[in-house]
C-alpha cells in the first residue's frame, strides 16, 4: 500500500496532501475530543460554576459530584438493567435484521424492493410521535413496567437503521463466492451463516454499535414504559439530579461520565472486532 503512494504521486502534491490530511485529522480530533474533556472537567465543578462560567477550569477539584452520583440508590441495579435491555435488544435486532437483510440482498422475490423501502423509510419518523400508541400497545400485551417492554421497543425502533446498513454490506459481497458455495451444496441457512455473516462482520458491528448506543442512551420510552425503580435504566440516574426549578449539572455530568464508561469500553472493543473481521474476510478472498 505504501509503495503505490510513493511511486506515482508528484512530490509537491504529496506534501500538500500530507499537510491537508493532518490538518483535517487534527482539527477534527480537537472538535471531537472537546466535548468529552469538557464533560469530565465540568463534572468536578459546582452547579453554579457550570452555569456561570461553563468554559472555565474548576476552581478546585471536588469529587462531591461523583460521590453523589454513586450514592444514587440502586445505581448498580440501573446498570444491570441497562446491560440486560441493551444486550437483548442489540442481539435480537442484529439477528432479525441480518436475516431480513440477507433475504433482501441475496435473493430475488416479489415485493422485495417495496419491503426494503418500507423498512427503511421508517427512519424518518420522529419517534416521539408514537408515545400514545406505544404506551397502549405495551400495556395491552402486559409488558408495562418490565425490562422486556424496553427490549421489544428498542429492538423494533432500531430496525430501520440496522436493516439499511446490513443490507448495504450484504449487497456489496461479490456473487461468485456464494455461487461456489451453492455448487458445494450449501443450504439456504448455511449460505447465510457460513458465508454472508462472516463476510459482513464490519456491517454487523457498525449496526450493532449504533443500536447499542441508541438503546443505552434512550430516555423517553425508558421513562414512559417503566414505573418502578427495579426496572429503571441508567438514563434515570442521569436525570436524578434534575428537579422542577433547578438542574444540578455537576451531579448530572458526573452521572453521565459514569454511565458513559461502558459504552466507550464496548465501542472500542467492538471496533477491534471490525478489524479482525475484515482481516478474516480478506483471507478467505
Amino acid at each position, binding site marked *: 500500500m505504501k509503495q503505490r503512494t510513493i511511486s506515482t504521486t508528484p512530490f509537491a502534491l504529496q506534501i500538500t496532501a500530507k499537510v491537508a490530511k493532518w490538518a483535517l485529522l487534527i482539527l477534527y480530533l480537537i472538535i471531537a475530543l472537546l466535548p468529552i474533556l469538557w464533560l469530565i472537567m465540568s463534572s468536578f465543578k459546582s452547579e453554579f460554576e457550570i452555569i*456561570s462560567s461553563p468554559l472555565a477550569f474548576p476552581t478546585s477539584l471536588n469529587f462531591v459530584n461523583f460521590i453523589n452520583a454513586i450514592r444514587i440508590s440502586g445505581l448498580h441495579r440501573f446498570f444491570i438493567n441497562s446491560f440486560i435491555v441493551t444486550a437483548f435488544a442489540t442481539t435480537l435486532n442484529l439477528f432479525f435484521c441480518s436475516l431480513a437483510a440477507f433475504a433482501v440482498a441475496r435473493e430475488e422475490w416479489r415485493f422485495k424492493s417495496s419491503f426494503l423501502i418500507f423498512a427503511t423509510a421508517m427512519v424518518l419518523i420522529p419517534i416521539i410521535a408514537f408515545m400514545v400508541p406505544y404506551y397502549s400497545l405495551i400495556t395491552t400485551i402486559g*409488558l408495562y413496567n418490565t425490562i422486556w417492554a424496553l427490549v421489544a421497543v428498542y429492538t423494533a425502533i432500531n430496525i430501520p437503521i440496522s436493516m439499511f446498513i446490513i443490507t448495504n454490506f450484504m449487497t456489496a459481497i461479490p456473487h461468485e463466492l456464494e455461487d461456489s458455495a451453492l455448487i458445494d451444496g450449501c443450504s439456504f441457512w448455511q449460505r447465510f451463516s457460513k458465508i454472508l455473516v462472516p463476510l459482513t462482520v464490519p456491517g454487523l458491528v457498525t449496526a450493532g454499535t449504533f443500536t447499542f448506543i441508541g438503546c443505552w442512551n434512550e430516555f423517553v420510552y425508558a*421513562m414512559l414504559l417503566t414505573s418502578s425503580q427495579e426496572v429503571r435504566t441508567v438514563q434515570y440516574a442521569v436525570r436524578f439530579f434534575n*428537579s422542577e426549578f433547578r438542574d444540578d449539572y455537576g451531579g448530572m455530568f458526573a452521572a453521565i461520565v459514569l454511565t458513559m464508561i461502558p459504552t466507550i469500553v464496548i465501542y472500542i472493543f467492538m471496533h477491534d472486532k471490525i478489524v479482525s473481521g475484515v482481516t478474516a474476510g480478506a483471507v478467505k478472498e
Partner: protein
Amino acid sequence: MKKGLFVCILAVLLFVVMPAFAGGTEEAAGGEVTITWPTHWVGEQGTGPIVEKMVSEFNEANAGEIKVVLEAHPEADAAEEVIRTRLAARQTPDFFLFKLGPSTRGYYDSNLLLDLTDELKKDGWGASFNPGALGVSTINGKVKSLPMENALTPVWYNKSLFDKAGVAEFPKDMNAFWAAAEKLKAIGVVPTSQMTGGANAWTSMLWFTHFLGSYGGPNAWELGWDDPAFEKAAAIMKRLYTDGNTTLDAIGAGPGESSAHYMNERTAMFINGPWFVANIRQNAPAVYKETVLTSAPAAGDYSGHQVGWLLTSAAAANTDDPARKAAVLDFFRYITSPESSKRRSIETGSLIPVQFEINPEDNIDPLQQQFIQAGNNATFLIDGIEAVMPVNVVQEFGQALSSMVLQDLSPKEFIELMKAAGN
C-alpha cells in the same frame, strides 16, 4: 439446515413468550389498596425529600390498608409527558399533579378524574383552602382537582448594586426606573436579567405581566390583546431589550443564563418565584443577603400589585370501587391538610393556598418571609400567562418578543404575532 430453522424458531418464540417472563407488576396483598403517584416531586432538592417523608409516614399510619407508591420522574417536563400519555391512553394515574390552565380544562369534561365537589363539603375540607385558589379549581360548579402550590413572582433587586449606583430606593415610576437604569449602567452593571429562550421566556414573560397589570389592572388579561394595555407593556419590553438595559445574550437565553447573571451581579434586577430561594442561598450567598423583593414600578394607573397564580394542582383517577375511592380520598385529605401544607411550605418555601398558622418559632428563611410579605402587601394579583392562555400562545411569547427586538417590529406588530399564535 435443521440447526438454522431451530435457531430462528427459538428466537421468535423467545420474543413471543416474553410476557411470561415479565415480573414487574406486583399483585396487591389482600385488601391493601395501592395508590401510585407518578411525580416529579422526588429527588434530593426542592419538594422531593419532604414529600417522600410525608408519604412514608402516611403508609406507616395506614399499614395493611393503603400504600402510596411514589413513581419517580425527576424531570418535570418528562413527568408531564408521561401523565399526558397515560390520560390519552385512558389509563389515568391514581394520583397526579398537573398545571390547570386553558389547555387542561378539558380534563374536567372527561370522566377520568374523581369528582371532589361533594367531598369538600364534608368536615370543612373545602374551607381549609384559600377561597380564591379553590375558585380557580371550580369549573362549571365541579371541583376535580385541588390547588397544591401558588406562584408569586415579585421583582428581585440587588440592594448593594443599587447603593453603589447611587439609587437610594427602588423606583416608583417608569421615569425613575429608566433613570436608575442609566445610573446602574454607569457603574458597569446591566439593569435587568431577561430571556426569550426556554419553553416560555420565563423571566421576560413575568416582566411583561407586571407592566400589563400596571396598565390594565387586576383583570388585564380579560381585556383581550387589542386593549392598549398590551401594546404599552410590549413597548416597555422592547426598551428593556435595547440600549444595554439587559445582557448581550438575552435573546435566546434560557433560565440558566438569566439567573446566573443575577447571581454573578452582572445584572441588578431579576424576577422569579420562591422556589429559587434555596438555589441563590446556596450558590450566591452574598447576593442572597442583598436581595430585596418589591413590586414593579408603576407604568400605568395601577401599582403595588404582584404576579401570582395557581401553579400546581393535584387530581385523582375516577373509580367505582368504594374501598379505592375511600383510600384515595384519605390520601388526598392528608396531603392537602393544613399540617402537611405547613410542613411542605416551611421545608421548601412554596406558597401553598391552604390556611395555616405560622409561628415565630417556625424559623422561616428571611427571603421566604419577604415572599409572604410581598403576597400580603400586594394591592392585587395578576395571573401569569400560563394560567390564562393556552399553551400554544405561551410558547410563542418568546418568539414574538425576539421578533420584535431583532426585526425592529412595533409593539403593535408584536401584539399581532401573539394574536396569530392563538388562532
